[in-house]
């Protein structure tokens, strides 16, 4: 139990641990970026297969769904048995959590391209590769980025849990605080991980906006009289 006299947060601890906080931030961001990046590459490949061979979509999302439902601690624990402590089991676990979110979003993004747009592109003489790159991808990108946003925010939360197997990040503060019945690092770790999630979320929202200038056409001042 925590002593009643202990304050929730001791600012002098925070002041003394700036270097630690910075290091944990770097670790947290690294783990997140690495997991989401690998997850995205794997998902892109799986999505390409699912888009090409429609029948594969069911099985792919089923497997990704099963991975998604395994409790994070249990999955990381099992992987530690095979890969030992450290980043490897954590990254594998985190990647497996991103798959369902990313595959669904990428497939939905391309499915969302209006059939008339696709037909017009083919009818005007686009080659398949050029059509995908210059017409379908730009239209799908905002939805794909929305998927990356959800995946990143989810992973930022999960990285905190991963500290239990010694992978660093903000979770290390929480782990430390829990072991010593010392609330300050717990609060610092929690607050920073929420803050990071919010910052990343906003970043992706801005990116979505920038990638789809045409969607801002709803501005009534630019509306043209119909004819």
């Amino acid at each position, binding site marked *: 139990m925590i002593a009643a006299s202990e304050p929730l947060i001791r600012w002098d601890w925070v002041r003394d641990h700036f270097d630690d906080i910075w290091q944990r931030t770097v670790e947290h961001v690294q783990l997140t970026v690495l997991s989401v990046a690998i997850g995205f590459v794997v998902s892109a490949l799986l999505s390409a297969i699912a888009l090409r061979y429609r029948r594969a979509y069911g099985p792919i999302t089923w497997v990704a769904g099963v991975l998604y439902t395994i409790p994070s601690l249990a999955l990381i624990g099992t992987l530690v048995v095979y890969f030992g402590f450290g980043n490897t089991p954590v990254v594998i676990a985190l990647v497996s959590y991103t798959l369902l979110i990313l595959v669904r979003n990428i497939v939905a993004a391309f499915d969302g391209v209006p059939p008339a747009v696709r037909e*017009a592109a083919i009818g*005007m*003489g686009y080659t398949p590769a050029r059509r995908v790159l210059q017409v379908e991808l730009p239209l799908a990108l905002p939805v794909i980025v929305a998927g990356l946003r959800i995946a990143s925010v989810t992973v930022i939360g999960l990285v905190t849990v991963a500290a239990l197997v010694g992978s660093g990040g903000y979770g290390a503060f929480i782990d430390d605080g829990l072991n010593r019945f010392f609330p300050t690092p717990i609060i610092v770790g929690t607050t920073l991980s929420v803050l990071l999630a919010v910052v990343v979320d906003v970043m992706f929202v801005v990116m979505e906006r920038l990638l789809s200038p045409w969607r801002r056409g709803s501005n009534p001042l630019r509306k043209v009289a119909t004819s």
Partner: protein
Amino acid sequence: MSIDVAAGGPVAISLRKVSKTYPGSADAVVNELSFDIAAGEIVALVGPSGCGKTTTLKMINRLIEPTGGTIEVLGVDQNSLPAHELRRKIGYVIQQVGLFPHRTIRGNIGVVCELLGWEKRAIAERAAELVELVGLDPMLLDRYPSELSGGQQQRVGVARALAADPPILLMDEPYSAVDPIVRERLQDELLDLQHKVRKTIVFVTHDVDEAIRLGDRVAILGAGGVLAQYAAPDDLLRDPASEFVSAFLGRERGLRRLSLLSVADVELSDGPTVDIASSVGQAVATAERCGSAWVAVCDQHRLRGWISLATLKSAAPEAPLASVELLRLRSWVTPSTPLRQALDVIVTSRSRLAAVLGGNDGDTLLGFVTIDDVAGGLEA
């Protein structure tokens, strides 16, 4: 199957025994279709749903590959070059327009030029040119498609199809998603545009009136993708080749033909006309001779107005006609008025005839047109 070779001019598109059967289906969607489309003509493909008209259109630019027969485009087999290269030479307009939402109007119009490797500046210039050609405000060039109305989007769709100046334009029910008023305007614009650009246009529609209005020739397809008749609209309406065609054209065939003919196509009748220099008595005599309850009053063949017989009879017979007050004639048409509209003027006029006005100032009385004249026009 008769092959109706288009009159005069080179053939732009030639279909020979073209068939399409989908795998797993015994029935052909299009069955041994053969006909020629002359360069510079608008050919409307029309027929009930399931007649394969859209399939036929899409086989021309190979969006659908035929399972039998050959299609020649501008004298070469369409398979002699890769499908995407063929398509860049054929403009394509579809019902849902399919503009690229992520590109501005300028970008959308320039798409095919881009594919053909034009320089950026040339593309921008061409886009500006086309926006005006299809009657849009150049201000719209920097807008995105979502900012435009349906009618404006469809005009951009036509501009995009014309951008690389392809000799052929395929249009797949382009106007069926817009409201009737806009549709009529777009149809007029297409005809105007065709005057300027003279493309070979293949136009799919399910609307007989649209086919008749736009087509230099109309190909009526029947169930199972067979050609029921291929003829100029007037010939089609006057002389349907089969029960099917006549049923498809509908009960108002005669009226539809009237909209194709104009007042200039019929013989005009004489009517009760007097010169303003005549006396009232002469005017009365003219009216009675014609069995009319009124007379039209002209000044050197220029129509000045009309007077009813009753008014004339209340005046002194020797009085000059100029002393009687003239009324403005409302039931008049011009030589270019479609007969269908002239008929409307005639049946709503009290005297059952319409004055035909022409000349430089549009006030010279050329004669009169009656219901009999209109009916005579249909026999011609």
